């Protein structure tokens, strides 16, 4: 199925691309050095997406030197800080990060020591495909049954993004969640299998082994697009959110879930180079070398072009009132774990 998905993406990219002008603009990168600062450790998910992207980038930019540098730390912040410091001269610096720094800036965390508005968005390498899954030993197989349980459900969160998403789910839906932060993937799986935890929020691909083992069942999709067709019957956040929750905010939350592994160009990057990088991104994501690397790495090929990412990020980071509402929802979700009688839509 992923091969078909990849083929469709490639086909769409070929149809929409303007080869002559693309070649002309890609010439701006000829002879230059592009440095991708990967905000993840070697071998982790972010790194694997970055390396697969580099395969395609090298194929579409044969005259360009492509370097990769892992700079993990601060939940992806270090890579952004490194890219912010890059000047217009020397190598063209790109950063690869994930949703956590975006959440950190939206919610005004002290750890957001960068300004994402200053960056240029080159594209998103995948779709987060976030889902909420429940352990089968709980005897509940759908969202309604889960919401009807008269207790807070223990939800170990693997990473900051999962913690924030779980809190927003608690605020926007009738679910009551007792979120336990800083639980890594391995421990989360053990807790779910032993019955000490009830639900998990994460990318569907990370939960596949437990789902295939019959330990978990998916009951909610947090995003709105890019899921495998087999998940069409699983309801989305929009379907299950309380009616009083702002549809605009649900849309923003969905768009954050739709965009995974973000590629950004340093703020000092020349606008012509940014355009060339976006073209190179689109071409690389459609190139057979990238498709093969995604296939080989069991990665989800669902990229988003830079312009679309920029529009979504403007909506999230540039909309002060929407941010305020999101912050309110987060506080509400944290306060009560989304208690049944809590109305998180009130200011």
């Amino acid at each position, binding site marked *: 199925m992923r091969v078909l998905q990849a083929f469709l993406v490639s086909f769409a990219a070929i149809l929409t691309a303007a080869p002559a002008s693309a070649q002309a603009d890609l010439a701006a990168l000829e002879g230059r050095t592009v440095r991708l600062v990967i905000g993840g450790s070697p071998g982790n998910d972010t790194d*694997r997406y970055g390396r697969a992207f580099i395969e395609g980038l090298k194929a579409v930019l044969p005259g360009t030197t492509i370097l990769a540098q892992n700079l993990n730390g601060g939940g992806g912040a270090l890579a952004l800080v490194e890219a912010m410091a890059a000047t217009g001269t020397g190598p063209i610096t790109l950063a690869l990060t994930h949703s956590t720094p975006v959440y950190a800036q939206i919610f005004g965390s002290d*750890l957001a020591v960068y300004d994402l508005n200053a960056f240029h968005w080159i594209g998103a390498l995948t779709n987060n495909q976030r889902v909420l899954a429940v352990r089968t030993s709980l005897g509940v197989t759908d969202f309604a049954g889960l919401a009807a349980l008269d207790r807070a459900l223990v939800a170990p969160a693997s990473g900051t993004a999962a913690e924030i998403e779980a809190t927003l789910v608690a605020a926007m839906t009738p679910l009551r969640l007792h979120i336990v*932060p800083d639980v890594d993937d*391995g421990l989360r799986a053990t807790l779910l299998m*032993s019955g000490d935890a009830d639900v998990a929020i994460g990318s569907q691909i990370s939960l596949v082994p437990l789902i295939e*083992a019959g330990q978990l069942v998916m009951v909610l999709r947090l995003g709105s697009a890019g899921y495998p067709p087999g998940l069409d019957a699983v309801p989305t956040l929009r379907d299950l959110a309380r009616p009083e929750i702002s549809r605009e905010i649900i849309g923003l939350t969905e768009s954050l879930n739709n965009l995974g592994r973000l590629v950004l160009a340093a703020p000092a990057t020349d606008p012509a180079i940014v355009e060339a990088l976006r073209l190179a991104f689109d071409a690389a994501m459609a190139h057979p070398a990238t498709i093969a690397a995604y296939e080989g790495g069991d990665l989800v090929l669902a990229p988003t072009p830079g312009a679309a990412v920029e529009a979504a990020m403007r909506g999230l980071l540039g909309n002060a009132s929407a941010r305020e509402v999101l912050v309110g929802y987060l506080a509400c979700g944290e306060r009560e774990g989304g208690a049944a009688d809590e109305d998180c839509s009130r200011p």
Partner: protein
Amino acid sequence: MLEFFGLESWSTALLALTAGTAIGFVVGLVPGIGGRTGLILCLPLATFFPPYEAAIFLFSMHAVVNTSGSIPNIAFGIPSSAADMATIIDGYPLAKMGRAGEALGASLSASAIGGVLGALAFLLAIPIAQPLVTSFGPPEFLMLAILGIAMVSSLSQEGLIPGLIVGALGVVASTVGVDFRSGEARFTFGWLELWDGVGLPAIVCGLFVIPEMLALKPFDTDSQKRATTTSIADVARGMLVTFNHLRVVAVSSWYGIVIGFMPSLGSSISAWLSYGYAARTTRTEIPFGQGAIAGVIAPEAANNSKEGGAMIPTLFFGIPGSSSMAIMMGLLAFVGVAVGPNLLDWNRDLGLSFSLAGAVILSNLVVIPMFLLVIPTLVRFSSIRREGIVPFAIALSIMAALIDTPRIITVVLIAIFAVIGIGMKLANWPRAPFILGYVIGDMAEASWFHTQQIYGWKVLQRPLTIGIALFIVGWLIYVVRSRPVLHIPGPRIPTLATSGGLLVGFGVVILTAFRSINLAGRTFPVAVSIFGAALCALIAWLAFRSKDDPPVEELAHVWIAAIAILAIPYFGLTVSSMAMAVAMLIAGGANIYKSILAALAFGALQFTLLAWLFDIVVEREIIGRFAWRFLGF
């Protein structure tokens, strides 16, 4: 038969096994690479094999990294991980006594037996995999962390109070960085590079390698010098010594297997717990910490057996049993091998489980002749004069730390820990508890938090938790009754200086915590610091009143090392290392031209590794600034 194992041909499988073992052997020899990086470097080679053979290649490679990793640990005292340090504590003193061959042989056979036992445990776990994995949760992890901290006493032959202070310091060091439970950046002092914590290679380099190298004694006699050569017979004798310690091997392997299958537990914990066990239960002619052979056998057996334990959750449930196994899972997906319950199913991929267990067992045996082949040559290098080893060993250790974290802060940390390490060395304080505290600190804090959050008082209903707790209580009673507690292990002035310096350090931690960290984030480090500060005050008072004042150990070339380390941010590691090598070699009486030649050869090798193989941008930029422009490029 081939179909059951999912293999294309026996010959391809054998080639994958041999190639993986050989590459893993080389990867282990180079300080700073290690299993995780080695796996990533080997991926392109794995793609040459069919999927299941590629999996055999990767597991064979990974299974023997620790085995050959003991060679630089024992022969040269160069570690690159926390687990390595457990081997070095006794392995390197043995090498200094001229018994490197024996220590390496013991390490080889202990590693092989541990590796085989781990793989057998993996196979035996097939029918009981799920209850095994799910019987341990945060409460049990917390108890194991406390048990590990209690083991500090086993690592503190020199004195219980200094051991506890050093362990507390390690725990405090583990709290540096972003705490995702409280959302606070703790003790980072504006350095973003510290958000992910203090890099262990920098700690190991500063705290252990530099003080040990500077204290290395020149060979007094020709016979002592000759003793540092070794033969296959020495190694074989060492291999047999392991069979005199089968109980230590078995229990250490058990620790490795159990810790291995517990997700989220650092694998080095098994090495330290087993070392603690050996130190506690084994009577030896040479005390632990000074060259006890059981101190080499225990961590090596645990190190290799943990691979089999970590394979259980990784392969059967897709739950990585360790950070290496997390990378392994990604690589297996890349080569086309799906992990999960399919590996437990007779009708699906059970054959692969047997193939991989077989690969681990065989690679642990195939590595033995490789080991024997290179040992006599490699150990000969340790017979080089002290002045010939010291600068290069220090430079290699700094290089390993820079490969781990290629930032200037690494050099700063090395300098800080070197000062602390030298202080402890002169005061004769144990330094191993630092690593144990560092490794266990984060696990203890996280497990305490998760236990509170998920279980509350229900934790008292978990029999395994209660069982471990009772064992800890019994153990502490035994320790307090069995040995003198108020004992000063070293000379007065270094003891006063070290305890005074650390007292100030703990004070800074407490003040910083109250000034800039919220209650949730500061409780744990402040509690540990108060404990550490109180013990520092106690030992300073004891030292002040003490009438014993043994002589202070002499160190050589301290100023050359200090200047070289401080020069790294300005001139790069390559240039600073070469200068340090030339200065130390000449100061040691070596020929000037030969010294320069040796330094240039080493510098060329180092720069190649740093700037190209590992793409350390900082080094390339520094060298670029000073050399490229000078040469007119």
